[in-house]
Each structure stands twice: as C-alpha cells, then as structure tokens.
C-alpha cells in the first residue's frame, strides 16, 4: 500500500551547489526524506528559477505559482557565493520568508555568524548525513 502525497504536503526544496557529486547527494538525501527537489548549479540559475533577476525584477507566475518551501545552498561557489544568494533572497519581498540553509565544508565561526545574522535558518557542515537532512525535514513541518 503506497502513501499518496498531495502536492501541497510534500515540501519542495531548491538545492544549490556547484559540485556535481554534492548535487546528486543532496538530491538523494532530500528525496529519501520525502521532499520534492529541484537542483541548481549556481546562484544565478537559482535566482532565475526563483523568478528573481539581477535587476530585482520579480516575475509573477500566473496560476502555476512556484512554491519553494526551503532553499539549501553551498557557501563556496564561483560567481555568486551562498552568502550573496542568501542576501538576494532576503531582499526579495516574495521570498524573504523562505528558510535558507547554508552548507559548507569549512567550519569557520565568522562565516557561520555572518550567515545567521543575514537570516539563514541553519548552517550545516558538509558532508551532510541522512540524520542532518531528516532533522531539517522535521523543522520544515514545524515551520509550516
């Protein structure tokens, strides 16, 4: 007997990472934790997907509303860092309330503080484990 999820019940997560292996991994971790996943390979692509462009013009999707329940992004990415992406999301009236999680392989306290001060929900150390992502998933249900 299979569980039938209604579209609204399954959180939709946008995962941003420039590393191909990490993208595959985060996608599997999230899917295993019952999330719908979209991946992006950099900040620009993420912003395009979210409907935000460089000049801060926000697209409105008619009818088919793009609903992203959480954004999880790597910190160190070429071009736009995860921090810069976080900034742009928090500056958007449409997206500022979407929780943003920052991941990094480096445990640098100033970096962590900087992200949390900018409004990141959590900072997670890579490589991510299944238990980390399950905790996140649990937080998502509480937020909603």
């Amino acid at each position, binding site marked *: 007997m299979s569980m039938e999820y209604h579209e609204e019940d399954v959180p939709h997560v946008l995962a941003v990472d420039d*590393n191909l292996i990490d993208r595959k991994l985060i996608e599997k971790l999230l899917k295993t934790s019952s999330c719908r996943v979209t991946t992006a390979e950099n900040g620009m692509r993420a912003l395009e997907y979210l409907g935000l462009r460089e000049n801060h013009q926000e697209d409105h999707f008619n009818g088919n509303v793009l609903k992203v329940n959480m954004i999880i992004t790597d910190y160190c990415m070429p071009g736009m860092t995860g921090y810069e992406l976080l900034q742009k999301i928090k500056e958007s009236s449409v997206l500022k309330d979407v929780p943003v999680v920052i991941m990094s*392989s480096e445990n640098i306290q100033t970096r962590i503080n900087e992200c949390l001060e900018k409004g990141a929900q959590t900072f997670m150390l*890579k*490589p991510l484990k299944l238990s980390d992502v399950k905790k996140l998933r649990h937080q998502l249900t509480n937020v909603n």
Partner: protein
Amino acid sequence: MAAVSQLQRQFIEYTTSLYNEGYLDDQFTQLQKLQDESNPEFVVEVVSLFFEDSEKLLNNLATALQQKIVDYKQVDSHVHQFKGSSSSIGAQRVTNVCVHFRNYCEEKNLDGCLRCLQQVKHEYILVRNKLETLFRLEQQIVQAGGSIPMME
C-alpha cells in the same frame, strides 16, 4: 564457483580493511544507507561520477601547474572541488592530501603543489581500484544469488 556465504565473508573482510586502512570513512556508509529498491545503483552511480570528475580535475591540475606563471587561485579552486567530492563519498585519504595541497597553494609553493599532485593522483588511483574491486565482489554475490551484507 564460490559459495554465496564465502563471497559474503570476503566482502565483509574487504570492506572492513578499507575502513581500517583509512581508504574509506563513515561517509561511504552514508552513501550505502541511501541506496534502496527505488535506486539500487545509487552508490555505483555516485562513485562513477566521482571517478569522471576526479580524472578531469587531475588533468586540470596538471595543466594549471605546468603554466609559466601558475595561477594558484585556479589551482586551489580545483583542489577545493576535489576535496569536496572526495569527502562526500568518503574517500578519506584523497581528502587528506587535498588539505595539504591547499596549504601549498596558499603558500604559492610550486614544489609542494607538484608533490601533492603526485600524491593525490596516487591516492585516487588506489581508492578507485579498491572501489572497483568492491563493486566486482558485490556483483559476484548478486550473480551467485546472494544479498550484499549491510555494514554497520
């Protein structure tokens, strides 16, 4: 044709040695935990991606270090990628060399970098061979009608 239990024992012994000798760490176990009926080839898929990616990175590193004027930021960027992906699949020895490699990049130490390149290539080839052996063992078990033991 070896009995299933004998193959399974071989598999357990081999896997244990890989962990004991530091070729693999807990992150590899995490990958195995993610494999299920909906995605029975997950570990092989991720590891194959790692192999492809690593070979590209090794070539890029060799090229970058051969330049008349070495761009250490570029070299470091490749090493950072390598460190990340090796860490994500649990290839501990590769990751460890990458840490030293990054230090040499910061110091702009060409000799150090060249030595690390050789070392990281060596460790990569070792872990690649070990993982290929492991996957072959798995295939043998499945072909003999057995199931792959879960390592805790």
